[in-house]
């Protein structure tokens, strides 16, 4: 378990920690400020139960899904969404390494995969985001140079203009 929930995974899970935090904040507020004071016990239980139930359920689901996803990440190859069954599609870490190599200054490394600002797998330092941003910019630049002719929505145009003739 310690292995599955490493820093990367925990970082991914922060997204669900925020709503948990908001609920906890209200729990604390209702207890401390007690805006509707002098409650009967039953009302109190309902009030807290309505907060506790989603809190607990969300915590459990986050844990279970995090374990399933992060576990599978460690156990088997990881691809980008929708590409796992395509033959010859690159694995996620290959793409990331290419991007990193490029960011590290080896400008001749073509990045054929398109950037993904999300790829913080190997970066656990707090400013991972900055690095990722850089990745993307260099990625876009590289593409602009190499295939200028094919940005914009040319492809759809191409296909359909045939019909409009």
């Amino acid at each position, binding site marked *: 378990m310690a292995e599955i929930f490493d820093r990367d995974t925990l970082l991914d899970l922060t997204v669900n920690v925020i709503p948990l935090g908001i609920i906890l904040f209200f729990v604390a507020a209702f207890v401390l400020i007690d805006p509707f004071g002098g409650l009967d016990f039953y009302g109190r239980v309902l009030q807290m139960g309505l907060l506790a139930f989603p809190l607990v359920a969300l915590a459990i689901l986050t844990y279970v899904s995090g374990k399933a996803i992060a576990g599978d990440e460690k156990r088997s190859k990881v691809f980008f969404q929708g590409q796992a069954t395509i033959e010859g599609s690159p694995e996620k870490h290959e793409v990331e390494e290419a991007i990193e190599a490029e960011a590290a200054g080896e400008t001749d490394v073509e990045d054929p995969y398109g950037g993904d600002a999300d790829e913080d797998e190997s970066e656990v330092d707090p400013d991972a985001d900055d690095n990722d941003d850089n990745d993307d910019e260099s990625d876009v630049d590289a593409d602009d140079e190499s295939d200028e002719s094919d940005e914009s929505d040319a492809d759809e145009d191409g296909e*359909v203009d045939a019909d409009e003739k």
Partner: protein
Amino acid sequence: MEITGQLLLTVLMGAFLLGVAAFLARVEDWRSYTPLGAGGGAVGESGYGHSEKPAGLIRWFTTVDHKDIGLLYGAYATVAFVVGGLMVMLMRAELTTPETAVLGSATFYNSLLTSHGITMLFLFGTPIIAAFSNYLIPLVIGADDMAFPRINAIAFWLLPPGALLIWAGFFPLPDVIPAQTAWTMYTPLSAGVGNGNQMNVGVDLMLLGLHLTGVSATMGAINFIATIFTERAEEVTWANLDIFSWTILTQSGLILFAFPLLGSALVMLLLDRNFATTFFAVEGGGPILWQHLFWFFGHPEVYILVLPPMGIVSYVLPRFSGRKLFGFKFVVYSTLAIGVLSFGVWAHHMFATGIDPRLRASFMAVSLAIAIPSAVKTFNWITTMWNGKLRLTTPMLFCIGFVSNFIIGGVTGVFLASIPVDLVLHDTYYVVGHFHYIVMGAITFAGMAGIYYWFPLVTGRWYQRRLAKAHFWLWMIGTNVTFFAMVLLGYGGMPRRYATYLPQFATLHQIASLGAFLLLVGGIIWIYNVAVSWIEGPRVQSGDPWRLDETDLNTAEWDWFEAKRETSLAATDGGEDVTADGGQEIEDDTAE
């Protein structure tokens, strides 16, 4: 009279059963031998007679193939969308004047209002999502079909009778009038109490129809859960599952908990109406019980409707941004978070019912918390586009429209989740504006993004680009004109669900009707474009019509499409192209 009526019914029923038996005998007969030969194809040049699929209409009535069923769902949803859309056009026409000058009676307006809501949510929203999920999920996760193909077919075929029952009040049946309960069916009105006319069987029929669509959705959900858990290809681990499948999985979980509850509540209501039980009577469970049960279903229902469209956008938008989805796992986890939290917010629809303020506060807290995962997704979409190489194709435009409208719809929702604001705005047009920004501006837009994006995949042809873009702009402008006017009407204090209004609201109502007219024109263009292009659009020239390979954003369903094209080119000596509808025996070549 009574006796002859029964006799007539018996004869009709008997004849019908005999017809069914004869049909079954025939079908069973050919099925054990060879497929039926010719037979006018209902849809273009369907199947060349290979595989076991029969030709013609019988194919569509007997199919259990997930792609065929997906198309059936799509056709059904389209019909429902047209019906619901025409209903609301009548309503918007009525609302151009403060009196009931156009339709002549508020009763008819109320009937349209009720049917419009139910049609759009249950007969269009849920089925159009099922169209995408049925067609695509087995392809994307590398399954051969759904886990339970027959249950899949049953789930679909429950829907047409459901629609007939829901619309029954509008048909010229003696003594049946349409329900006027609004889609929320609040008791005591819907229990037929009081001097109104809601004791009419029209309401019973509608409740039965709704019950059927609920059964259908539940069966579909079980099927998707089983399929995604057990039928994934080996490579598709949880870490590799795509975002659309994740949203469908979550949605199915929500359906599994929400719809059976609606079904039970509907049965209780039917019992109250027909067998004098007192579930929702003042002397029994009380009318408020209905609201609790309904919204315990109802709020999850709005996420049932919005999660898969979010999945479509998360899936399609990166393809035209030239990069992968930003924060893929954030999107997955926040989807799951929405799924859980959506069961803890139902009473934010009941803030004004005099509910205990302590409970109200708890519901407010969770309602505010649930806004976070939605916002996270929004930021992920924006960040995906940020600095990307955007290609403003029609699907992409609809995705961007989705994000834009979802922001307005979401922000208005967060305001409503705050008790003091809601107490002012509850039951005004502000609420109508809020949820239409989401159901029309977001959910329907995502549906259109999906339809345009996968149009080449399904039909092997291109739609007309200019018409598609005209459709988008008409809808983008129309949506914002219509529903922003409603937000303003709500600020002005215009209550919802009225056929008449004070003269001071006339201008904004007329503006809203103008926007609705733009939506109508856009919709007509859409139907025309899809229909004509399906029949005679130019054929796509490659297995990767969106050129996703160039940015390495190809996905499994296009890979399948490519393989299917190759197989069919080979099979037909290169002359013919792919067939217009779901592939036949080819899929086992691509499945691993």
